[in-house]
């Protein structure tokens, strides 16, 4: 009885392993998501912001995906007073993928908006206002799909736009994110 159970377990593990590791991952119906920290460098200001970066992406074909991404401002890595009190940004766009086995290099464009409010220090302690700003962004990245559940990723994004409230600030920024993501094939 014990022997049968052991063999059943071995067979089940083999079946699960086979299912997880052997099938083609990057194809239509693949959904991937991640939540990570993102560092950035503003190109017109001497500030390095960091964000909580979330992403949700669906592959319409092996080469084409649509994605929605959001950044929640966590703080400023540079010395001196913070530039922003609030600096959230949201993007939606498409990416074009070049894939080979588990590797996936992509380039995409993502229009977006920023919801930002300056730190009062920037306005000599006068109250600041929240403003919604149009953004343009393009992304270049690489995913490595370990199996049907996990992948590693690295993404760089260039953002451009201009905050036009209280004190005009150029929002042009280079953002880098990397980490572990989750993926699932939603179709057979």
């Amino acid at each position: 009885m014990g022997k049968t159970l052991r063999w059943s377990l071995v067979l089940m593990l083999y079946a699960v392993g086979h299912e997880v590791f052997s099938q083609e991952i990057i194809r239509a119906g693949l959904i991937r998501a991640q939540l990570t920290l993102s560092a950035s460098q503003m190109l017109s200001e001497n500030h390095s912001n960091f964000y909580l970066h979330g992403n949700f992406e669906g592959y319409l074909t092996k080469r084409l995906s649509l994605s929605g991404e959001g950044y929640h401002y966590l703080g400023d890595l540079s010395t001196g007073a913070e530039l922003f009190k609030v600096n959230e940004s949201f993007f939606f766009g498409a990416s074009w993928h070049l894939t080979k086995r588990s590797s996936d290099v992509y380039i995409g464009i993502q229009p977006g908006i920023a919801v930002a409010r300056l730190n009062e220090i920037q306005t000599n302690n006068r109250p600041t206002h929240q403003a919604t700003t149009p953004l343009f962004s393009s992304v270049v990245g690489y995913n490595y799909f370990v199996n049907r559940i996990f992948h590693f990723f690295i993404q760089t994004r260039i953002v451009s736009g201009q905050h036009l409230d209280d004190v005009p600030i150029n929002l042009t920024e280079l953002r880098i994110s990397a980490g572990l993501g989750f993926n699932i094939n939603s179709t057979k």
Partner: protein
Amino acid sequence: MCCTKRHLLVIISLVVQSAVFGQALGPSKTGWFSLGGRNTLSTFTHDGTGLGTGGQFRVQLSQDVNTEWFADYIMIGLPDGVRSTYYHIGWSVLFYPFSQLKYPRVIQPYILAGHCFDYNEKTVIAAPSVSESRWGSAVQAGIGTHVNLSEKFDVSLCSQYMVHLTNELNVEKDAAGNLSIQKEQRNSAEGHLLITVSINYKIFRLWEKH
């Protein structure tokens, strides 16, 4: 010789006609509804340059005619610390003059023209109470091209000139350097060049023509 020339002309005209009208059009594209997002670079003659974010949907009426319904939110930083915000909502008709240029061809050029309603608000950034707004209407025309990356997905690049017919808002600066925003009493025609890059995905067919 004359007869040969005439025959040659007939043959050439038949070949041209065959090339122009006789091509198989492939599966009909009529009725497709597509949805997308866009960024617009607005270059004004008097306002400067600004960036916009927006979206659009398209309804394709025939093989050669498409319609695009769009909304844009554009923000421009004017000199002297004035913010100009534009909201555009409108539609354009896209005409494909080269019927053979469509998917699977990557490049699909088009001509477009249409109408638009727009709302403009100008605000002195350092003194937000100094602000003025107006509604207006506009017409636009231009050229563009789809870059068909798959049968259902395209990236489109378009350049169009939009002329507003409205009471424009002018920023005035007095001798003391104080800024004010004045609405012109008379309608005037002022324009700007809009360069738009958009991504579009054909989601479903509203109707099907066999």
